[in-house]
């Protein structure tokens, strides 16, 4: 397993279930200044909004809210956890590595932290989109912010 820490499949399951059952960042933002993007898909039920609060090239907050399966809920929640406090460039690098992992290409595991739990998503091809929809939505939001 290409990771610096020892993580077992049991731990990976527990992390996914924990972020699904107790999401840290699942709510509509109350403050001003958020930009958002709708994430949904034609072949799954997932349908949620991703919110980003950014200033001076830094991610101050990331949240999401809506209906989603375990894979898209947990992957989006872990994404929010991971990128809060990062610069745009750092966040974009993490997203790039994560997407490479899901596509079963070479990736830098050192920056993924808990997101490594989605290593085996490719076993269920129909869920690849679920595991990436929050991540690609944030990528798009960051690219817009940079312009």
């Amino acid at each position: 397993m290409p990771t610096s820490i020892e993580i077992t499949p049991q731990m990976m399951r527990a992390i996914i279930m924990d972020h699904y059952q107790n999401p840290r960042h699942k709510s509509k933002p109350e403050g001003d200044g958020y930009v958002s993007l709708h994430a949904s898909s034609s072949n799954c039920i997932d349908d949620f909004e991703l919110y980003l609060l950014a200033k001076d090239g830094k991610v101050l907050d990331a949240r999401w809210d809506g209906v989603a399966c375990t894979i898209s809920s947990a992957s989006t929640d872990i994404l929010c956890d991971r990128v809060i406090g990062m610069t745009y460039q750092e966040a974009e690098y993490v997203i790039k590595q994560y997407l490479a992992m899901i596509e079963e290409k070479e990736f830098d595991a050192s920056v993924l932290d808990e997101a490594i739990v989605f290593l085996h998503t490719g076993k269920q091809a129909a869920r690849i989109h679920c595991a990436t929809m929050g991540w690609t939505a944030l990528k798009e939001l960051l690219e817009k912010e940079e312009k």
Partner: protein
Amino acid sequence: MIDPYKIRNDFPMYRNRIKMQGKPLVWLDNASTTFKPDCVLDAVKAYYESETSNSHRGDYDLCFNIDQKILETRQTVGRFINCRPEEVVFSSGTTASINLVAFGWGAKYLKKGDEILLTQAEHASNVLPWYKVSEMTGAVIKFIPLDEEGRLTPENLSAVITERTKIVAIAHVTNVLGYIAPVKELSKIAHEHGAILVLDGAQSVPHVPTDVQDLDCDFLSFSGHKICGPTGIGVLYGKFDLLSKTDPFMTGGGMNAKFDMCGDVAYLEPPLRFEAGTQNIEGILGLKAAIEYVMNIGMDNINAYEEALKRYAVSELEKTGNAIVYNPKSEAGIVTFNIKDVFAQDAASFLNSRGIACRSGQHCAKILIDYLKVVATVRASFYIYTTKEDIDALVDAVRHGKEFLDAYFN
């Protein structure tokens, strides 16, 4: 009585021992589409290997033979649903058939303030064409309330139908809950108010005996691929006098009697009027073989067999204590359920990891929210080749539902 093990010998998808995720395939998505028996594949292949010709396009034998076979298919459909061959219009499927009625009849005759009655259990293809017709004509769409179980009853139709109602468009069997609508009584009520009854037969024609004269529906749509036939072929049945008053949805070759440069056009009589362009001939020939195949098994037998499977599945699922079944009492071979504490989409991936094909989704969001109080469900649907072992595999998976993340780790 049906012997599914014997029937499976006719189906290459079973004979070839197809696997999914390395497990023997358990196909429980028959409401979505069905497998094809050899006779259907042979009919399609024969058209390309020894019978190729267009229809209505020549004076030679091959062409005559194809015209003859297409006519025979109309006769076969006629025997299947008890109508005249000239009342059988070929289309690409249920969606195209309903659109033809909506635009060819609805858009032509509806006026501002007229009413179209639907139910909340309709499939999108029996809702969205009517929205479009409503936009074009100013006709109003209203929904017939369903009872607390999600059933359409004659009483509820009577309660909302008015003299302004021109169209009642409903499914004979609903695709989420699988209730069989009391069509005979509903069409009587519709006709008493001067409305026509447009029946969506996508989920009924493959599974229950259909007699359009007895039901007295005005139009009926169904798809070939849900009756073991090819994809891309379906039927619109219409009472001949209504078809005669219906405009073509598409115009072009093969549907006009004559036309000149001054814009004078005469269309052919139904059904040819609605079949512009070269038809899906392989599909028509495959449909004939498919209908003969299921008629040979017997629609009464199919109906009884699926009902028995449905009862078995509901009782076994309930025994696990780990399933919520949303339609235990409906008659058709459709079980809509959730595994306790597992999101429908996660359940479907888990089933996939065990080789089981089920559909997860909102199917029809409105009814789920209003009647089932849940955003998404899993649907298992049966057919003539479904075995008790298929259902046992599903039940065993449901029993182990808590381990749904196994799908990613085993």
